[in-house]
């Protein structure tokens, strides 16, 4: 079964996939008459060449870590949670409710409360499909997809009719109070005297995302619940034979998953926008699926894949700002990366396995 050594599985396949996707992107860029090398340089400079670039890259990374972890946790229980988008939207609602309903004396208290608000709302949105799956057998893929649309409609209704300040045209809540402002990396670094771009939205949520990575790692590989989740994911029958409750695992894995997706809102809603806008999640829930697939559902992999997608987002924005490459092409590049790293896994794996097998035979 294990033809490939671990390092090839974890490092080589993603890198080759990535190189292939960049190669095709380069061909497309040449085809529209631009220079792919200078395009790459703009992307690298724009995303990683300054604290400003890093600030945006890490901001997007934070979003993708949360949604990537969310998909990963569910995936360990063989639950394909496509609903990260909707859960993140609801998480935003949780943050907004907490931040608007009370006058917070200090950001740290607001952050703790908002985190719980985001997780509870996100988890609730995942709980309904999970319950239907566990007790009624409604397929989780279908229900979570549908719940994305319901979430968008619910938020739209609330933003247009309930939360919008009187006389405002923008379907968004009012701005959260100053006290709920999360410290950005600029503010945090300036305490220890390191200059960091003031404009970048990356904030303390990034550290929380790293903590979440560690907690998910502990949960999946070092707790009884994590063991049960993995057992269930590998074989439902074996799990039942071992006395693991199907309902319990489906519900808890989806609650954790939804909570993580919802938690993303402390970054984009509380940290960046500081108000709840329409469509706040902006596809991060879907990117999370690609991140989890590419990261092999492991927190370290998720972190690295999220960083890659953060780079693609920020680098793509710079590309659109300073060249005449249309934004649709940037989406094409991102899609190629997703296609190669997520969907066309076997394209690289099977030839690679053959190479390794023939190599092995020679050694034998």
């Amino acid at each position, binding site marked *: 079964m294990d033809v490939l050594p671990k390092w090839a599985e974890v490092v080589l396949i993603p890198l080759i996939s990535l190189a292939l996707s960049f190669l095709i992107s380069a061909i497309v860029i040449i085809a529209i008459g631009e220079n792919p090398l200078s395009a790459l340089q703009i992307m690298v400079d724009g995303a990683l060449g300054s604290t400003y670039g890093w600030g*945006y890259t890490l*901001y*997007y990374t934070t979003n993708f870590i949360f949604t990537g972890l969310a998909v990963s946790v569910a995936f360990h229980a063989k639950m394909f949670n496509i609903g990260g988008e909707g859960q993140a939207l609801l998480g935003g609602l949780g943050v907004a409710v907490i931040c608007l309903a009370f006058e917070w004396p200090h950001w740290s208290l607001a952050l703790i409360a908002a985190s719980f608000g985001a997780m509870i709302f996100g988890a609730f949105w995942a709980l309904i499909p999970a319950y239907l799956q566990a007790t009624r057998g409604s397929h989780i893929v279908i229900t979570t997809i549908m719940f994305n649309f319901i979430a*968008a*409609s619910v938020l*739209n*209704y609330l933003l*247009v009719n309930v939360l919008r300040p*009187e*006389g405002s*045209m*923008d*379907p*968004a809540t009012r*701005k959260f109070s100053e006290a709920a402002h999360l410290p950005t990396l600029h503010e945090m670094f300036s305490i220890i005297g390191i200059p960091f771009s003031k*404009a970048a*939205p990356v904030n303390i949520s990034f550290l929380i995302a790293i903590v979440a990575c560690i907690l998910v790692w502990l949960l999946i590989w070092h707790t009884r619940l994590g063991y049960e989740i993995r057992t269930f994911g590998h074989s439902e029958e074996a799990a039942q034979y071992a006395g693991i409750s199907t309902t319990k695992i489906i519900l808890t894995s989806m609650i954790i998953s939804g909570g993580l997706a919802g938690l993303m809102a402390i970054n*984009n809603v509380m940290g*960046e*926008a500081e*108000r709840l*806008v*329409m*469509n*706040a999640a*902006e*596809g991060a829930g879907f990117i999370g699926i690609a991140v989890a697939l590419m990261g092999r559902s492991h927190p370290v992999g998720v972190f690295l894949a999220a960083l890659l997608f953060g780079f693609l*987002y920020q680098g*793509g*924005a710079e590309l*659109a*700002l300073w060249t005449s490459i*249309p*934004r649709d092409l*940037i*989406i094409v590049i991102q899609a190629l990366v997703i296609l190669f790293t997520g969907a066309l896994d076997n394209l690289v794996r099977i030839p690679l396995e053959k190479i390794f097998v023939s190599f092995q035979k020679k050694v034998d």
Partner: protein
Amino acid sequence: MKLKMLLTSTFFSLGLIGSAFAEPAIIYDLGGKFDKSFNESAFTGAEKWKKENGGTYREFELQSDAQREQALRRFAEAGNNPIVMAGFMFATPLAEVAKDYPDTKFAIIDMVVDSPNVRSVVFNEHEGSYLVGMMAAMASKTGTVGFVGGMDIPLIRKFACGYVQGVKAVNSNAKIIQNMTGTTPAAWNDPVKGTELTKAQISQGADVVYAAAGGTGVGVLQAAADADILSIGVDANQNYMHPGKVLTSMLKRVDLAVYNAFSEGASLTTGFNVMGLAEDGVGYALDEHNESLVNAKMISALEAEKAKIVSGQIKVHDYMSDNSCPAN
């Protein structure tokens, strides 16, 4: 004396060179610049300025909300001046950014931002919609007309409310079928849904349909032309899309707003800038593509009403002033 003149003229040309370096910039909203409607109209204005002045400008099409502030700051830091934004969604990030770049001039369309270096361009869409509503009622044989909105937000309800008032002003018994395409920003770019809604409205008897739906309107106009009824375009002049089938277009001169801002350059006057019927900021489109559909009686009625609105004799209710529409 001669020397002084020479010096002044040198200064003058230097000044010109200096201002030529300050490229203006435009940021389009999420619909993208080729939406055949709002953003494209802004693009047209920018291109017109480019053609007439031979200058260059920077542009950016948004992919996500977080990029609003990012693009504003990047352009401001690169020295672009003025920076024009097409869309009300820029209001909140602009209010932040404008403070940090007091020497850069900004112009925002469709929203008011109170800052000394910002020009806020607001259109009286209800007035323009009122006039095309009148025309729809006059052209309708069934007495039933339709309205297809884009995303269900107050701005689009403002279009709808003006339209309803205009229709009722001509035919108080008219039936007006109103539909919104959706509740997410995807509703700005969903021509298939626009077609479906239009077909549904036609089956209910509508024979003139007004699309205020950005890119979705393409589907509305197509469905109306296919069913051989009339449609009304929006923002840009869309009469050419189906000659003889598009009754008129409710012009919202976003292009004019962008052109004006670019032309004024770094010396852009700031403050509140209303573009209503009086300023020719809104209106209805007449050209060779719809001349067979519009008769002199219609035009004289519309012009008479327009004069009354401009003089203040008739007040078209603005939905957004109190979030309700008395005509509904």
